[in-house]
Structures are given as structure tokens and as C-alpha cells.
């Protein structure tokens, strides 16, 4: 596995493609025809060699109008993907607009599934300018930068599994991680967490 930092590329051309990779590549082949995307979270670590499986693959897609979403949804259904949250496209699109994640899986098998969401703030939006391309034997895909991946896993999600995912990337790419960037993202994450806590407390007192 070669990381070309300046080209923002990771080359894994000799990777033996597994069933999860196939599922991801099939889904993204359709998605990228309609909208820009970036793969985030657990699958990033798995794609980069982590020895674990997962039940879901998270992606951000750029905010799109319902007309574009409608075409994407239609094509996903034609290829056998189904939405776990609802059937009607207006309802599914409504979830996305409300910053909720929607899930798609293949032919009524709930696992593995894709968790698709719109970016909910500037920090999420900036993922679209902070990605790297992973080159596989026959395909390419876009994942969040290593620094962003580490920062979110270590300082936002924080579970044992998430910290292990971050450690895997840090160990595998030792000496190639920009920790100034990780720390800048850590500060932005800290601010977001404080905002979320404030909103949640306000909501609790208003509804309680």
C-alpha cells in the first residue's frame, strides 16, 4: 500500500477484493453518476487494511435537489438496492433534508448497508475538499483524508472501536500523518461538541 501524500492518493492496486469492497464499489458506481460523495468512518479503516468487518458503510453526499435524488433513487432500485427507512422518495429525501442518515442495502438483506447523509454543517462540508483517492485493481474511490479520519474517530466518536480504527491508520501510515492538521480538526470538533451539548440541554429544558 503506497501513500502519495502530495497527490492525495493511496495505491492498493494488488488488493484482493472482498465481498464488502464489491458491495461498496457497486453502490458507488451508481451514486457517483448523480452526486459527489466521500466515504467516511469505519470502512475507511477497513479499506486500508483493518482486520474487522462492519455492518454499515458511511458516506456523505453533497446536498442535491429532490429531482436529482429522485433519479439516483430510481437507479439504485433498478440495480436491486432498497431503502431501509421508507419506500416513498419524498419521505426518504425528507430524512436527508432533516440531517438524518438513510440506509440502503441490497435485495432485502439489511446487512451490510450504506448509511448516506448530507453534510450537516461547515465541518462536514469541508470533507469534500479534504479527501484522498484510493486506487484499487479496477476502480477508484474517495475517502476522507487520514487526518480527518483520525480526528473524528479519536475525538468525536470516541468508542473503543473508533479509537482502534484511528490507531490502525496511525500505525499503518506512521510518519506520514500531519498532526498539526489533526489538532486543528480536534479544536473544531471540540467546538461542535460544545454546541451540540448546549443545544441538547436547551431542548431538554424547553421540552422537559
Amino acid at each position, binding site marked *: 500500500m503506497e501513500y502519495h501524500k502530495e497527490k492525495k492518493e493511496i495505491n492498493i492496486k494488488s488488493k*484482493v477484493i472482498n*465481498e464488502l469492497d464489491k458491495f461498496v464499489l457497486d453502490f458507488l458506481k451508481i451514486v457517483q453518476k448523480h452526486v459527489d460523495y466521500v466515504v467516511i468512518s469505519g470502512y475507511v479503516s477497513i479499506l486500508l487494511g483493518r482486520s474487522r*468487518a462492519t455492518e454499515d458503510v458511511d458516506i456523505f453526499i453533497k446536498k442535491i435537489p429532490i429531482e436529482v435524488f429522485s433519479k439516483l433513487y430510481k437507479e439504485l432500485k433498478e440495480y436491486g438496492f432498497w431503502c431501509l427507512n421508507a419506500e416513498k422518495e419524498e419521505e426518504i429525501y425528507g430524512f436527508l433534508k432533516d440531517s438524518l442518515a438513510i440506509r440502503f442495502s441490497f435485495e432485502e*438483506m439489511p446487512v451490510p448497508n450504506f448509511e448516506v447523509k448530507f453534510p450537516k454543517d461547515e465541518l462536514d462540508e469541508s470533507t469534500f475538499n479534504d479527501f484522498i483517492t484510493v486506487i484499487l485493481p479496477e476502480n477508484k474511490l474517495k475517502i476522507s483524508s487520514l487526518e480527518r479520519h483520525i480526528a473524528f474517530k479519536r475525538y468525536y466518536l470516541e468508542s*473503543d472501536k473508533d479509537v482502534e480504527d484511528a490507531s490502525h491508520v496511525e*500505525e499503518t501510515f506512521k510518519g506520514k500523518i500531519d498532526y498539526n492538521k489533526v489538532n486543528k480538526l480536534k479544536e473544531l470538533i471540540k467546538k461542535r461538541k460544545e454546541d451540540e451539548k448546549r443545544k441538547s440541554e436547551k431542548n431538554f429544558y424547553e421540552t422537559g
Partner: protein
Amino acid sequence: MKNENQKRIFMKPGKTNKEDRLNFIKFWANYIKTHSDKEWSEQQKMLIDSQIKNVKKLAKKPVLPTSS
């Protein structure tokens, strides 16, 4: 065929489950860096494909009628 001159790297056992898991992550990351993509990804394929195979098996199982 294994290269006899290749130095084996051993994994340090952790004192807790958490430490042991992190030590394995370091061990595995080192394996990735010292072996070809084909070698590590074949092992990863085994792990991931077996999980998906199990899910497919479960999805095909008929649902038992519930007793009322």
C-alpha cells in the same frame, strides 16, 4: 515459501483486553507494512467474506411462525 532470514516480529500480550487489542492493531499494521497487499488482503477477504456468507445464510432462513 517463507524466507528463513526474515525476522519474525512478535506481538506483546496486553495486560488488559483493551491493551491486548491495541497491541494486535500495532502487530497487524506492521504485518501490512512488511507484506504485500495481496498477502494481507487475502486474509482480510477471508474474515469479511465469512461474515457476509453468514448474513446471507441467515437472510435465507425461513421465519418460524410465532405461537399465539
